[in-house]
């Protein structure tokens, strides 16, 4: 597990690389409440990693620890093999970790294209004075970033709404725009907090397709939280199962499905499985 060079081959023939993110004995408390209790797991390069569990299991808290919105009281976060000191969320984003939110956090007043372009902010090097003085380089950079943004807009099939202000879009499309913005950052690790929450079957199918082809075509490493068990089992390479802040299972979908603790805590009482 600790061997950084180690990887594995998936059943559908994708090469999974070394560990990119490792959580070691993470404990997170809010006052007296322990949201996460001594959890360790890792995420490998090129992998689709799911975190599942019943409501209140601490899944979102875990994602917030990875993205820097919460700072754990105990434990270590290792990113690309190096210990990560406590960081602000914007610093984490600058390190190449992009995310979406359960309740969608978009720039409502901006167009879809502008939203996706903000995803490129971490790639914009030229400072404001250089931009004022050295117009050519700034323009070149703008064009390059624009090309990446347009490519992602095409990829997620939202060309038709490029110029539409986000506030006017329906929920399902907003979720997709948020994904586009996160993807525009060309992240080393993409965190998706319930990407399919509140969607209808058709929208869920679309989103699943995007997640899979994103991983396939761009090799994006993805960690996602999802409630829909069927979706999780189809999408992910490995699954972490949480319950009441503890890790009760970790492994391939099949392993997790047959894990008695998981069946007791989650699958056995799930209403849609």
């Amino acid at each position: 597990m600790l061997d950084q060079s180690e990887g594995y081959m998936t059943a559908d023939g994708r090469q999974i690389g070394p560990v990119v993110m490792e959580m070691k004995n993470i404990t997170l408390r809010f006052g007296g409440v322990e949201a996460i209790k001594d959890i360790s797991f890792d995420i490998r390069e090129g992998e689709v990693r799911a975190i599942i569990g019943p409501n209140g299991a601490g899944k979102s808290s875990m994602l917030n620890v990875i993205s820097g919105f919460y700072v754990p009281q105990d434990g270590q976060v290792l990113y690309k093999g190096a210990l990560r000191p406590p960081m602000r969320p914007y610093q984490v984003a600058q390190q190449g970790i992009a995310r979406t939110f359960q309740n969608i956090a978009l720039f409502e007043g901006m167009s879809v294209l502008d939203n996706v372009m903000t995803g490129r902010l971490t790639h914009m090097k030229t400072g404001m004075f250089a931009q004022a003085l050295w117009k050519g380089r700034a323009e070149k950079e703008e064009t390059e970033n624009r090309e990446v943004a347009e490519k992602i807009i095409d990829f997620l099939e939202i060309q038709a709404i490029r110029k539409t202000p986000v506030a006017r879009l329906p929920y399902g499309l907003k979720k997709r725009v948020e994904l586009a913005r996160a993807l525009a950052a060309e992240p080393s690790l993409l965190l998706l907090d319930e990407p399919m929450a509140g969607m209808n079957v058709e929208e869920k199918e679309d989103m699943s397709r995007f997640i899979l082809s994103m991983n396939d075509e761009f090799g994006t490493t993805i960690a996602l939280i999802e409630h829909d068990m069927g979706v999780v089992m189809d999408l992910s390479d490995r699954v972490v199962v949480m319950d009441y802040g503890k890790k009760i299972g970790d492994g391939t979908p099949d392993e997790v499905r047959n894990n008695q603790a998981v069946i007791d805590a989650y699958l056995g009482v799930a209403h849609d499985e």
Partner: protein
Amino acid sequence: MPTDLLYGAEVVLNGLMSGVLYALVALGFVLIYKASGIFNFAQGVMALFAALTLVGIMEGQVPFSHLINAAFGTDIHHFGWHVPAVAAILLTLVVMVGFAYLVQRFVFRHLVGQEPIILFMATIGLAYFLEGMGDLMWGSEIKTLAVGLPQGGSIWVEENTQWMGFGNEDFYGFFIDKLDMVATVIAAILVLALIAFSQYTKQGRAMRAVADDHQAALSVGVSLNFIWILVWSLAGFVALVAGIMWGAKSGVQFSLSLIALKALPVLMLGGFTSIPGAIVGGLIIGVGEKLFEFSFGPMLGGATENWFAYVLALIFLVFRPQGLFGEKIIERV
């Protein structure tokens, strides 16, 4: 052409010019309000402080000289040098950026997530603190600001508009203050530069992101702290420009901070979140109050300029609470 009509036109022109100055102050409010939701009551005092600092630096005044003299029994007031206007403006800009940093570091960083009314109260405290600081640093006497801006009416405009009277012997051409003309040009450049900055630069884009959604801005790698310092610096820069214009017009005195109150009706007209709104609002108030004074002032006993703007804002509040250009307030039940 009838004399009254010509005078009316001149009143409108002068109103437009004074509206530009209102717009400049309102612009500072809009910048900070958009990016951080803080209604900065201290914007007017910032203009005063910037103007005081500019004069102080230009004339080589020793800051805190009263305090130093009282404490050490010395009698120093001036360094004995004069700093050229351009260098002094740059130095003042540095002071305003430093002020922006201190405000963010020691006040608003500790108030993140607080109610708007608490943030507003903090800016009132800031206003009085800054006013006192200005007094302590540079003294309270009225100063003249001579940065080389032209003064007096423009003879060129007067001579070249005389024909518009079409033989009317009472009309000698429009009287327009040169300073007002310069202020208009500078304000226009400033606004264009600000718009270009927010549309086309990385920091401008980050600024718009922060103005729209804090959480989303964080997730795309924008430091809220940095953007807030940037926005306060920009507001400080706008305050400096406004301070120079007003200071050159009527001397640097502490009543300068009251122009902030005139920016309130401007914002109510234009909307608190719109840069074009601040400009148009400023122009409407400027023209409106001059024209009203010209037409109805004598009937109402004069001095209508003191209250006209507020009454106009009140009427707007009833019919269009979000202002002319503000984001529409939609309540869904």
